[in-house]
């Protein structure tokens, strides 16, 4: 355990360690966590200006932060993230409902982003109630408004939760915050990996790597112990982050928090293996820096560490499937929307596959260095 203990000590003795394991994650949690709880950014266009359209607006208000834009800006605003959901209440909505027509709302969101479900379901629930009421009042607008008024007073309960959101661990608005949080945390974990990479390469440069392997220890044992040390450090970081998230969002519950711990732990393994692979292939500190800039950071962008993968063009989304972060963020989204452990097993399996591939790249040729 000599090498293991020494490496753990060295990682923790570094000046950057406090910054990376405590300061940055806490900052991220504070910034994104607060922002994420504020609600979904909704652009609402009420062209009907009726009693019904006002009620729809009221229904979505608790889960929304309204954003003021023009209708022709919708696509652009969705893409740049100013708006997450656009809801259009067309002129003649109330009339159409009264006539018994299945008038719908028009809504825009980025395909695949499921975090806006609470707005959608609140609006749809109100509308379907309106349809039911309309069937019974037979076109009597006053009766309709009276009945709907009772609904508004809470005399009739609204069925606002869909099946999926019923089992969701977090309200969708908070879930979006947490998921973004996890994406950013994977970044700090990758940064940790870069550090371990540098420590390892420094050992190659100072000759201590060769000197160690010249001793009475097998290459395999060395690899297991260094891997173990780097893994311990990274996994502690991941677990700490998951626990902090669990504390900030107690609604998440124990099960989802534990699953998050598991996902981040598996990602730690991937990250450490990736670090060793990069170190092994880049071979020098300088070339590792280049690799980090041109490989790791684009990979993190692609994988959804900075923004949801779903806002990217299709082909980039396909490409994102080849980055490990993608599977962390999607596993996180899944478990936040209430997925069972079995549902994230494929994600974990794929992450483990990444770890194996990176391990192979990381150990390839290493024995030769030792010679």
């Amino acid at each position: 355990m000599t090498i293991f203990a020494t490496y753990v000590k060295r990682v923790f003795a570094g000046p950057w360690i406090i910054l990376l394991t405590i300061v940055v994650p806490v900052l991220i949690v504070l910034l994104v966590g607060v922002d994420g709880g504020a609600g979904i950014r909704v652009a609402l266009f009420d062209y009907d200006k009726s009693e019904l359209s006002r009620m729809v607006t009221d229904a979505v208000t608790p889960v929304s932060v309204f954003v003021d834009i023009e209708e022709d800006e919708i696509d652009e605003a969705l893409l740049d993230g100013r708006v997450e959901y656009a809801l259009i209440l067309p002129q003649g909505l109330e009339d159409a409902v009264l006539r018994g027509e299945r008038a719908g709302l028009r809504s825009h969101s980025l395909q695949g982003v499921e975090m806006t479900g609470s707005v959608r379901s609140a609006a749809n629930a109100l509308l379907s109630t309106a349809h039911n009421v309309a069937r019974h009042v037979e076109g009597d607008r006053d009766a309709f408004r009276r009945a709907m008024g009772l609904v508004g007073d809470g005399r009739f309960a609204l069925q606002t939760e869909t099946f999926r959101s019923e089992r969701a661990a977090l309200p969708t608005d908070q879930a979006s915050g947490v998921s973004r949080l996890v994406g950013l945390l994977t970044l700090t974990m990758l940064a940790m990996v870069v550090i371990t990479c540098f420590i390892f390469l420094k050992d190659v440069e100072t000759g201590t790597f060769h000197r160690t392997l010249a001793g009475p220890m097998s290459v395999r044992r060395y690899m297991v112990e260094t891997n173990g040390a780097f893994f311990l450090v990274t996994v502690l970081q991941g677990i700490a982050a998951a626990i902090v998230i669990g504390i900030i969002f107690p609604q998440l519950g124990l099960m989802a928090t534990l699953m998050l711990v598991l996902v981040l732990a598996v990602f730690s393994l991937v990250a450490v293996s990736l670090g060793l692979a990069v170190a092994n292939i880049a071979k020098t500190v300088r070339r590792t820096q280049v690799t980090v800039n041109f490989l790791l950071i684009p990979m993190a962008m692609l994988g959804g560490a900075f923004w949801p993968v779903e806002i990217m063009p299709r082909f980039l989304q396909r490409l994102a499937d080849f980055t490990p972060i993608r599977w962390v963020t999607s596993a996180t989204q899944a478990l936040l929307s209430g997925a069972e452990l079995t549902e994230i097993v494929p994600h974990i399996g794929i992450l483990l596959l990444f770890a194996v591939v990176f391990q192979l790249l990381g150990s390839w040729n290493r024995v030769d260095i030792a010679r």
Partner: protein
Amino acid sequence: MVVRMQRVTKRYGDVVALDNVDLTIERGEIVGLLGPNGAGKTTTISGVYGLTRFDAGEVTLFGHPAKRIDPGIKRRMGLVPQDIAVFDDLTAGENVSYFGRLYGLSGRALTEGVSFALEFTGLNERRDQRPKSFSGGMKRRLNIACALAHRPELVILDEPTVGIDPQSRNHILESVRALNRDGTTVIYTSHYMEEVEAVCSRVIVMDHGRVIASGTQSDLKALVSDEETIDIELERMTPRVVEAVRSVAGVKECLPEGTHLRITVERDGVRLGRVIEKATGLGVEVLSAQIERPTLESVFLSLTGRTLRD
């Protein structure tokens, strides 16, 4: 026998780093491996340490074939690499302790071994400092200390004094002698012949991957010549003095040059005192006297036609 190499050959592509090398090292020896850069010294000891695979030949260590060096045998050896290899983010003490543990020490044995190694290399006061703040000589000493905590029976030092101040160099040379006095077998690699002359009981001279000579220092010097030159400076030169010196048994030649007499004698055959007696007996005072013996440098020169620093 601690080490035996038989007909060992090692090639790097077209370069023949070792060409049919034979050598043996007995328990308790300090063997100097002398040769210019590129002679194959590092390759030889890498082989002894089991770090290099050879293309041909056999190596045995403590009687075991080196192909199967088990950790137990490794722990009986300590290697001081040519290029300083210490962690600069660990203190001197932590460095020595790391390698001590790597070589199987723990608990009390570790504490004692670390203290011994630091004390031995004169770094005890610096044990809590990182090598970043160390001078070249101190780094070299730490490099050595890292190979000593586990008290190896065989210590291999690869050019341990390159690029350091004379004081540190003397400290290191003295340490090597002290190690040997305590019973440690030492292989000392260098291209400085003064160092090898100063510490080694036996010398193996290498060049171009071959062992070109080996033996005690006087064996080697005998290879070059069986003569020595004595140079004495006289108060004044007289023909009778020249005659008298010439008549001393073992003197082969005696040539006056101004007030100097250059006397060629059989190796170890003539005592300087006898020559001085002859001159002073004739009333001529001797101002200075010097014996010129062959050096390892001249051995190397005569064997290869080159100097060690070429």
